[in-house]
């Protein structure tokens, strides 16, 4: 190894650049920011400001990100670097002054303020600054978000503790009163965000936000979840041959529980039950899923441990969600001494049929279900109007999620292969080591080989076996970190898809309902015509009254469905936003752990070999 290689010249310019632009890249996804993000109601005016800065930021970030990726190519760097350097002082300037200003405005809602400010900037500024300005704006806006999070979280909390998240009921009420069709709303919402950047409309976004702030803060998201500590442990095998299963002890501690603490035993099936129950209770919410089923080797120690871990992660993630943690089913699940009947009762009460869903769902979620899925799809097509996705947002997300599933599945398969091969390699090495030992032990009398050679062979063997242990440990680590994260996300993706299908199902129902409504309305119109034309129309009038009654009934039903549909759309969007944040966080953590554990492995193995080299004076051997 050449020495200058090790000296790490690769860090030569990379880190500096990272320091400059990485906070920029990282910022908009900071968790606080996401949590504070408003529920985007499906209305253009409120929607636009939310998405606008985002797209602006990311647009610039993309440029920067790309630039860094090919930092070997100097030419590519040369051009974008200028604006970055140019903005570096601008950043501080903007962060210091402009942010300060925005912070002090009492109406400081999250996103609304940015737009007027920037557009004003744009309007007033002369064209001379134009080339720098664009980047500066992107950077500055990001910095603003960060500055807000970091420096002045309190004023924000004081003026508007829940952020602009409140408006849900308000807006939905508004929507109810207005008779805009859902489709129109959706298209407006989908088209809105991306293209409004250039339009200087300082007034438009401010209005609804002010309304939102005034409206009653009944936001779910903003409510900080109560501390709910859950641990799953102590797996015990119970039952006879046929009914044998593992029972886990769940210990939970929270103010939400009547006793403060609870300790119950649950089996795997029960975890599935609570999963489906929660899915049913909160449509549009991504419920952290339990680990997948496994028929063979259920009592294998490693498997039980990994399952226990996955179950614990699931419960902890559920518990972190303010919505889920108040769910009566969950509390019952955590505390009930008499789970079986209670579960039945709850199931009846909520009409979820969680225990029966289970099997079907498994069929559906397993990879072999391509046929089943397509079958049910065609069935859906035959029974009702097919819903074609109108919301671009959903189209994008859906393709992304599907791609994610495929890719993650691929990675997981490959990881498993790697692990399997490494395990095989370890056994081979073990065999090799016994042979090495044999070789070293051949000269029992010690008069043929020199002492040093024998100890060399012995040392070689022991170094190898130590290394083998190390590798085995790191393998386990890899599987526990990266492997389990990927596995978990594969399952979460399943949940996400479930949410999508819930929404589609609602939409289909809505469409059917609307079709029926229009049919009735047509009938009413026809009857009206007959009433006007015919003389004897008592029967017809009666019929009209009947139809009208039906229409109002259907209308209210449709409205209910529409409301539900809007709600689920909002919820899913909301949830997916959180999903994206969590995804970034979890994967980053997993990859970092994976990386660090591998770095440690390499260090340790270097150390082992170096020690071996030194101890046996290998430097004297050519």
């Amino acid at each position, binding site marked *: 190894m050449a020495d200058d290689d090790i000296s790490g010249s690769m860090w030569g310019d990379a880190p500096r650049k990272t320091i400059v632009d990485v*906070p920029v890249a990282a910022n908009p996804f900071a968790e606080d920011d996401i949590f504070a993000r408003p529920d985007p109601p499906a209305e253009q005016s409120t929607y636009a400001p939310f998405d606008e800065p985002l797209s602006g930021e990311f647009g610039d970030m993309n440029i920067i990100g790309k630039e860094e990726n090919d930092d070997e190519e100097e030419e590519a760097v040369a051009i974008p670097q200028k604006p970055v350097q140019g903005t570096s002082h601008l950043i501080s300037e903007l962060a210091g002054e402009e942010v300060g200003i925005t912070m002090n405005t009492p109406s400081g809602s999250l996103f609304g303020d940015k737009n007027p400010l920037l557009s004003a900037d744009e309007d007033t500024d002369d064209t001379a600054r134009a080339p720098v300005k664009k980047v500066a704006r992107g950077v500055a806006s990001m910095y603003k978000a960060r500055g807000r999070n970091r420096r002045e979280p309190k004023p924000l909390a004081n003026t508007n503790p829940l952020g602009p998240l409140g408006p849900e009921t308000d807006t939905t009420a508004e929507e109810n009163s207005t008779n805009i069709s859902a489709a129109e709303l959706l298209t407006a919402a989908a088209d809105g965000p991306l293209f409004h950047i250039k339009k200087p409309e300082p007034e438009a976004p401010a209005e609804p936000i002010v309304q939102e702030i005034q409206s009653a803060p009944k936001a779910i998201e903003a409510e900080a979840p109560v501390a709910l500590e859950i641990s799953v442990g102590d797996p015990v095998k119970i039952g006879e041959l046929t009914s044998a299963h593992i029972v886990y002890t769940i210990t939970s501690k929270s103010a939400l529980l009547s006793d403060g603490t609870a300790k119950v035993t649950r089996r795997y099936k029960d975890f599935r039950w609570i999963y489906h129950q929660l899915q049913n209770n909160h449509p549009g919410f991504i419920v952290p899923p339990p680990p997948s089923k496994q028929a063979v080797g259920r009592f294998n120690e490693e498997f039980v441990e990994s399952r226990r871990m996955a179950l614990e992660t699931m419960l902890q993630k559920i518990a972190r969600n303010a919505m889920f943690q108040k769910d009566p089913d969950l509390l019952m699940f955590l505390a009930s001494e008499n789970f079986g009947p209670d579960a039945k009762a709850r199931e009846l009460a909520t009409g979820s049929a969680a225990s029966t869903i289970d099997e079907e769902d498994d069929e559906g979620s397993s990879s072999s279900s391509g046929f089943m899925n397509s079958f049910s799809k065609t069935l859906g097509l035959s029974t009702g109007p097919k819903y074609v996705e109108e919301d671009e947002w959903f189209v994008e997300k859906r393709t992304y999620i599907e*791609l994610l599933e495929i890719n993650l599945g691929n990675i997981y398969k*490959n990881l498993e292969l790697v692990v399997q091969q490494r395990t095989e390699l370890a056994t*081979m090495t073990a065999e090799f080591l016994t042979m090495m030992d044999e070789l070293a032990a051949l000269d029992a009398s010690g008069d*043929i080989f020199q002492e040093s*050679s024998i100890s060399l062979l012995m040392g070689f063997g022991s170094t190898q076996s130590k290394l083998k242990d190390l590798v085995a440990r790191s393998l386990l680590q890899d599987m526990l970190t990266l492997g389990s994260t990927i596995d978990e996300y594969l399952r979460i993706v399943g949940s996400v898809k479930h949410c999508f299908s819930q929404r589609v199902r609602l939409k289909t129902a809505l469409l059917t309902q609307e079709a029926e409504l229009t049919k009735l309305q047509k009938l009413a119109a026809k009857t009206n015509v007959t009433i006007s034309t015919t003389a004897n129309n008592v029967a017809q009038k009666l019929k009209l009254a009947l139809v009208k009654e039906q229409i109002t009934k259907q209308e209210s039903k449709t409205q209910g469905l529409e409301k539900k549909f809007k709600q689920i759309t909002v919820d899913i969007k909301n949830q997916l936003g959180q999903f994206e944040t969590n995804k970034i966080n979890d994967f980053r953590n997993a990859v*970092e752990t994976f990386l660090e554990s591998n770095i440690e492995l390499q260090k340790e193995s270097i150390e082992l070999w170096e020690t071996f080299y030194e101890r046996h004076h290998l430097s004297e051997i050519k």
Partner: protein
Amino acid sequence: MTSAVPYNPDDFDVNNPLGDDFDNNPLGADFSNNPLGADTPDDTVDVPIDEPAEASTIIPGHTITAIVSDEELHRLLPERFHAQKSQAKITVKISTIDFSKRENPIVTLDFTLEHLPGYRKAAYKDVRRSYAALGKFQKYLEIANLEVFVPSVPPAVTSYPTGEQEQTKVRRDLQNWLDYVTGNPVVIRDDEFVHFIESDFDYTVINAHHKAAVATGLKRKTLKQLQPPYDSFTELAEFRPFVKSVYQTATKLTKQMERIGRLDRLHSVALADFGAAFQPLAEAEAGRARAVSHPGMVRMWQKVAKTLAANADLLLAQSAVELATLGDEFRIVASDAYIVKECLTNRHLVMRELIQAQDSTKSSHTRVVKIKNRSVIDPLKVDEAIKALEFATQIEKNLTLQVKRISGEMIIERGEIMARMETRLNSAVTSYTLAKIETARKTLRNLEQIRGDIRAVDERGGLSRLGRDHLPARGECGAASQSNKGDSWSNRTTRAIDVVKNRSDEQEMEPEEPQGPAFDARSAAALLGSCTF
């Protein structure tokens, strides 16, 4: 001399006028097969042996007098111990190797000869010998010199990918082998060496008749099944089973290394696939609408994919090096051990011949005694019997000398060949270790390179900053843990790479020649000093 009944000519009435001839008749027919007879000048064979001195350890049955005195050994192995004869020396140096044929490269050799009769010149330049010729020569030497362990010619094809590494290794191994062979005083006095060096074109074996020296083929197989004859040289008696198990273990190790190498390759492919599987993730992330695409994630997945692929490549390279260092070395050790084992078998066969000769001496002796005790003596029969006895005695005597010579030489060579094996193993382990360290270091560097990118995915800086909000956003994570000054995680002062680097620096300073003989057979033997006589 080790007959059960010592022969004393005085026991018999020598009234045969023809009987005197026997002493001077060396029974050439039998000796033609004997390298001892062919190679050693007469004076060594015909040295009168002081019988009473040796007869002290007569054991009933077929035995060989165990201990050879120093004096006798000196007489028996003049190549090693004679003041003048031991000065003979062949120095050989590989000047070039033509690798155009991978399986059968052509080696150009320069010879320098000292104190060796029978050569026309003192130095021979640019002697071109094919690899196959070397193999033939080795085979010949092995058969013709029963007392010598001639190691196998190292393979011309290594586990390294074709290229410089392979060529260096082949060159080093061949030079090493030539040095070992020419370092052996017995072998260099072989007539065939003259042919090997002087032949104008590629060498072929000239003295082909030596093949008959010991049993071959089915006979050899059958004889090997028998219990080995009693061996009073404990060192050699223990040596054969030892070498046999070395051979077996080394063969097993070779196979295992091959299996591991195959699996390593698969593993590296799997690792590369694993890395490649991250690429679509990056693409999917990058391909999203700009509003939702996260550049940090894109960068992370790209870097992870790249690094894993790079590490897979490193692993692949390392597995080749592993195979080439340990695997090939085990193969060479195994074939050397096999040759040593066969040489020891040859010795057993010669010992068996000796036992047969002893038997025939004994039977002719009894016949002579019988005739002597008869009342009527037929002078013709007496003549015949005495002739037969003399004949048998002579064979026995020569065989005894041969066994002694073989045993003495083998005891010396045992140390040499084992030292060679040991050196090979040690250097194999060393280069293996170095390769391992190098790969680990490179892998570590690769991994550390992307550390910053992963921590920088979002502004919180990853797990490394857990609970330390006041630290600057990032900075220290970029520091590589390995540098010229040492490793940040340990206070080790000397590292393997530094040692290797210093060594290569030294080599560059004096570009005199690529390290010549890695090991001198004689000095190694002296170092071992394990001869017990």
